[in-house]
């Protein structure tokens, strides 16, 4: 049978090699190195901090956050789940994974929210942004790894960068959606009083879009979690590494333990951020009251220094 390959062959692999190795890497290496610096700084600081904070304090903080935003059920789950992770001996790995996720989500928000705002400003901006996001979401996450390794090398930071690229689309999309969804007559009202675009953004659009943006943040967080194992393939550590090593050595127990840790972390983070989206971020007085209530479970006179 005749096939097109008999007539023409396209050496795509050679071309890509030439493009990436011959041009992109030599010319832009300083840029890619520099781009890693803020990411790796944040990651290392956060990782060191989370490993330094005693397990009980971290658990208490997450339990309280769960109580504030997600209810008693999630709070109990958080308490038991974190204790379980500690007991199976993967607490440090879990904290490293948490540091990776928080770093990724932080950068996703720092880049994604402004990008979403930009996309919401004009239909042209959205027409440019949208196909890029579509492509980012259709490329399988594995395929990201190749160019990332080429450009950034292997290690923790390239893993985070892959995660950021993979997880950023929802927050851009939902920021755009949230800002475009602000009632038209409210926009008109703001305009009619002579507000500037920035004033409108701060006073009206961002507060009104906050729920939607937080829903986007939640989705971004979940995508980041789903990258944990894949990012470990290119040298990122944490629970993903545990799962990968377990698989590599056919050590089912180790792989399962890592997996269980990821699942517990995922559930806790999902519930808390979802609650933030639904109830709003409002930290103010109610959190203070809650903390006060927690520390005052015993009659005050008995205890001079609470906690």
């Amino acid at each position, binding site marked *: 049978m005749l096939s097109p390959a008999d007539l023409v062959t396209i050496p795509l692999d050679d071309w890509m090699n030439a493009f990436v190795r011959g041009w992109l890497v030599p010319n832009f290496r300083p840029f890619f190195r520099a781009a890693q610096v803020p990411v790796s700084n944040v990651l290392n600081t956060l990782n060191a901090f989370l490993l330094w904070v005693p397990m009980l304090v971290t658990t208490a903080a997450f339990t309280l956050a769960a109580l504030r935003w997600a209810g008693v059920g999630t709070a109990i789950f958080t308490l038991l789940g974190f204790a379980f992770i500690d007991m199976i001996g993967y607490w440090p790995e879990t904290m490293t994974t948490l540091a990776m996720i928080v770093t990724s989500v932080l950068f996703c928000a720092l880049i994604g929210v402004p990008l979403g705002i930009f996309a919401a400003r004009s239909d042209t901006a959205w027409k440019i942004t949208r196909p890029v996001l579509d492509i980012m979401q259709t490329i399988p996450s594995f395929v990201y790894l190749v160019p990332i390794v080429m450009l950034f090398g292997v290690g923790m930071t390239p893993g985070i960068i892959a995660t950021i690229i993979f997880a950023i689309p929802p927050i851009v999309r939902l920021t755009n959606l949230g800002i475009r969804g602000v009632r038209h007559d*409210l926009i008109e009202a703001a305009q*009619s009083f002579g507000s500037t675009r920035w004033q409108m953004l701060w006073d009206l659009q961002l507060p009104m879009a906050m729920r939607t943006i937080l829903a986007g943040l939640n989705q971004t967080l979940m995508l980041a979690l789903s990258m944990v194992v894949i990012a470990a393939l290119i040298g990122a550590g944490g629970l993903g590494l545990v799962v990968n090593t377990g698989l590599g050595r056919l050590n089912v127990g180790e792989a399962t333990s890592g997996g269980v840790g990821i699942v517990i972390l995922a559930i806790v983070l999902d519930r808390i951020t979802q609650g933030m989206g639904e109830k709003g971020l409002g930290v103010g007085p109610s959190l203070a009251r809650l903390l006060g209530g927690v520390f005052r479970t015993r009659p005050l006179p008995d205890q001079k220094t609470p906690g």
Partner: protein
Amino acid sequence: MHPKLSVRHLFKIFGARSEEALERLAQGQSKEEILRETGAAVGVQDANFEVAEGEIFVVMGLSGSGKSTLVRMLNGLIPPTSGKICIDGEDVASCGAARLQAIRREKIAMVFQHFALFPHWTIAENVAYGLKIKGIPAAERRAKALETLDQVGLRPWADARPPQLSGGMQQRVGLARALATGPQVLLMDEPFGALDPLIRREMQDELVTLQKTLKKTIVFITHDLNEALLLGNRIAIMRDGRFVQVGAPQDIVGHPADDYVSAFVGDIDRGRVFRAGDIARPPQSVQVDASHADVLDFMMRSGRTAVYALDNGRIAGVLCHEDLVGTTVAIRDHLKPFARTRPEVKLHELYPLAARGLPIAVVDDNDTLSGVVELDDLFACLAGTDSRPAPAHPPVTAHQQTERLDAQPG
């Protein structure tokens, strides 16, 4: 007097082929034809009007007639396709973005049909919004917001949030928000359209009361002719983006420009539109020391059965024909007590006075007779079969509308 707001040859065409649509309009094509053939929607075509300082100018029309488009062009929310909009002589349509922003901050404010309050802010913060935009410090703008809330009777609600308030209260907040920056021009796009009839009535009365002290220049949009007649110093009737008639309420109801306006005006309570001064006849009176014969002769010539008698310029009373015939008693002893009213009083308030069956005296500030309301004129006017001579200012048709600036009731 220089008009506060003046609009000249204002057009708005929605859609890409607006130039072509303008030409077709000039050739006399209709809105529907243009939409079918070019896909361009005609929002407003050739609007011309002026609003004097302190006047309420009402634009009335059915849904889709272009009212919202028109009012949004006045503060630049919708850029006009062509034409001029001058506030204090300055063209809003061509003044540039920075200047437009300044005009919006200083001179002109808007009230919206669905209130458009910011749900994430308190009432006081909402009212202070225009001041915040201008960069006024927080304490000062809160003080001003509370003061303005006082004017609309909502000060106790300053720290509530919009969803906690009823519709009528929310629109009071909308009004307070517009008033807080001290604008000279208020644009109101069907502000009471979303309210229950009773509340709407209350808000209309309140606006009339407020306007007595505020004296803002108001462009008020409505689809309710009764509302237009109640509030408007002048009214423009709009249809398919065009003004069909512009005039005082009495002109619109008394002399509708075409069948379209007539159809609207048909079931209006005319007693609430016309005023004593509109139907009063010039005062023809006799002196109280005239002779029987002279008075009867006068009645005969003027065709009236009851006339007013004056005593040194003051009204002495009414003389009736049937009392005078066949007696020789002095005229002075036939005088009957009379009812007096003022020219601006609406006809429906005259009904109790009319029950006496005698003509009603219309008096001016010095209590001297300035006119007489004959009962048959009253009924003719209410019935819409008014046969008196046309008013001093003929009603305006669409073609002459721009020339009208006069005939403002005080």
